[in-house]
C-alpha cells in the first residue's frame, strides 16, 4: 500500500477538483439562468426548451462527447474558428474537461432549479414587485432562498455528476496525465488495465472528496433555509 502511494501521481485529484468546482459553478449559473428563462416563456416553448435541455442526459456520455468533439475538434469550423482567431482550444485541454462535465451535468441543475421555481408561491413574487424591488433583487433575495432546497439538490447532483464524468471527457479532453486526467478517467484506465487496488484507491479518494463537498454544500445552504424541516 505504502509502496503504491509512492508511485501515485496526485494530479488527477487536483484536476478533478478543479473541474468539478469550475463546472459546478458554470452549471449553477447556466442552469439557473436557463430555468429562469424557461419560466417566462409560453407553454409550447417551454416544452421544446425542456426537451432540448434534457438531451445531454439521454445520450450516452460518449455520444455527447463525440458530438462535442465534432463541434470543437480542430478539423471542424467552430473549433478552427475558436483556435485560430481566439486561441481557444477545448480538445485535449483542461477547459475541455470543464466543457464536457458542464454539458453532461447541465440538465441536472436546470431541471432541479425549474422544479423548485415552479413550487414557489407566485403571490410572494408579486408582493416583491409591488414593493418596488428590482427584478434582479427579487431573483436573488426572494426567489432563490425560497427555491433553496431545489437549487441545493441541483448543485449537489451537478457536482457529483461532473466529478464522476468519464465518457464525454475522455472523448473531448482526452486522458492526459497531469493535464486532463481526472480521477474518473484514472479509475477507468486503471480498472481497464486490471490494476484494481490503484483503481480502488482512486475510488475511495473520490468518495471522500464528494462527501466533503456535499457536506459543505449542505452547510452553506442550510443558512438559507429558515428552519430545517423534519416531518414527524
Amino acid at each position, binding site marked *: 500500500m505504502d509502496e503504491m502511494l509512492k508511485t501515485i501521481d496526485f494530479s488527477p485529484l487536483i484536476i478533478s477538483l478543479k473541474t468539478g468546482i469550475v463546472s459546478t459553478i458554470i452549471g449553477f449559473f447556466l442552469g439557473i439562468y436557463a430555468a429562469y428563462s424557461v419560466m417566462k416563456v409560453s407553454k409550447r416553448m417551454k416544452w421544446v426548451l425542456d426537451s432540448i435541455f434534457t438531451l445531454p442526459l439521454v445520450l450516452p456520455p460518449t455520444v455527447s462527447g463525440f458530438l462535442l468533439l465534432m463541434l470543437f475538434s480542430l478539423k471542424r469550423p467552430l473549433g478552427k474558428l475558436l483556435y485560430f482567431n481566439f486561441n481557444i482550444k477545448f480538445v485535449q485541454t483542461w477547459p475541455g474537461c470543464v466543457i464536457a462535465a458542464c454539458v453532461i451535468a447541465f440538465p441536472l441543475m436546470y431541471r432541479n432549479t425549474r422544479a423548485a421555481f415552479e413550487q414557489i408561491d407566485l403571490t410572494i413574487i*408579486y*408582493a416583491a414587485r409591488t*414593493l418596488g424591488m428590482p427584478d434582479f433583487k427579487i431573483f436573488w433575495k426572494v426567489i432563490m432562498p425560497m427555491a433553496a432546497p431545489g437549487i441545493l439538490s441541483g448543485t449537489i447532483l451537478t457536482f457529483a455528476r461532473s466529478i464522476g464524468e468519464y465518457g464525454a471527457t475522455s472523448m473531448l479532453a482526452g486522458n492526459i496525465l497531469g493535464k486532463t486526467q481526472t480521477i474518473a478517467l484514472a479509475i477507468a484506465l486503471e480498472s481497464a488495465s486490471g490494476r484494481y487496488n490503484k483503481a480502488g484507491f482512486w475510488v475511495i479518494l473520490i468518495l471522500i472528496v464528494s462527501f466533503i463537498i456535499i457536506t459543505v454544500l449542505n452547510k452553506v445552504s442550510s443558512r438559507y433555509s429558515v428552519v430545517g424541516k423534519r416531518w414527524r
Partner: protein
Amino acid sequence: MIVLEVDIKKKMGSFNLKVSFQSTCKCMGILGASGSGKSMILKCIAGIVEPDEGRIVLNGEVFFDSNDKINKSPQNRKVGYLFQNYALFPTMTVLENIKTGIKGNKEYKRELVKEQVRLFHLEGLEKRYPEQLSGGQQQRVALARIMAYRPQIIMLDEPFSAIDSFLKDILHKELLEILKNFNGNSILVSHSRDEVFKFCNSLTIMDEGRITVCGRTKDLFNNPLRVNAAKVTGCKNISKIRKVNNYELEALEWGVLLKTNQVITEKITHVGIRARHLLTVDQKKENTMKVDFLHYAESPFDVQYMFRNSMNDLTKEIWWITSKKQFHTILQDIPKYIQFPAERLMLLES
C-alpha cells in the same frame, strides 16, 4: 389634488369584473360582499393582474392603457398593496421584510425600520421569521412593510382582520395619523363598517364585479340607494315592496303597509330599515306592526331581538337592536308593537 382613475374590465373564469371610478379623496373605502371583486380591483391597480381592457391612471401617470398598450410594471407604480394574506417573504426575518421596500442609505433604512417596528408594536420580534409569528403579528409586519415603502398610494386589504380590538384601536389612531401626513391617496377594503366609517370620506360599494353605488360615506350609510349597498352597510331588515301610492308602500316580506317621507319612484323595489332605527310602541299607530318575539342575541352593549309579524307566519324575521342600558334583564318588557319611523325608511333600488 391627487386623482385615481380606474376604468377596467377583466374576466377570470366565470367572474367578470367591470368597474369604473374616479377618486380624488384621501381615503376611499370599498365595501362589498365576499367574492365581489374588491381584492381584484386592488390587484389590477397594483399591476399584479392585467385587466383585459381599460385604463388606470394615477395623478396623470398612466399605469395601464389597453389602447396605448401601456402596462407599467408593479415596480414602477409605487403602489403599496397590503395583501389580504400578507404575502410576507418566508425566508426573511421581520426586519428584512420591512427593509425590502426602502430606498436610501443604510442609516436611513435602519432608522425607518426602527420607526416602523415601534409604530406597529413589533419590538422583540425583529429576528423572527414569518412562520414564527402569530397571525396578528404577521399582519402587522405586512403593514409595517408597506408603510416603510413610502408609496404613492396605499391600498389596504382588510388591514386589521387579525388584530385584537385593543391593539386595533391603537393602530387605528396611528394609521389615521399616518394617513393624515401622507400626501397620496389610499384605498381601504374592509368588512368592518366602523373602520370604513372612520377612515374613508368616500365609499364605493361593489356587487358581483360591478360598482353599484359610490358616494360620500355618511350619505351612503344614511341612504344606501340600493339593496346591495344597504346590506353591506349593515342593514338587516330589507323587504320587497309593492307601491301603493307616491307616499305609501306595502312591504311584501313583512306584511305591512308603510307611509314614507320620500316619494316612491318607479325604480324603487325594496324598502329597508336599520335594526337600530326601529322603535317599540305599546299600541297600534301609523307604520306599526304587531309582532311575535322569536329570539334574541346579546352582545356586550346591545341586544338583538328577532320578531315576526304576528298576523302572518310566512313573513320574514325583523331585527331590532337596542342598547343594553335600558334593560337590566333582557326578557322583561318585550315590546308588542314595533314602529317603522317614516324618516328612517330607506327606499332602495335593486
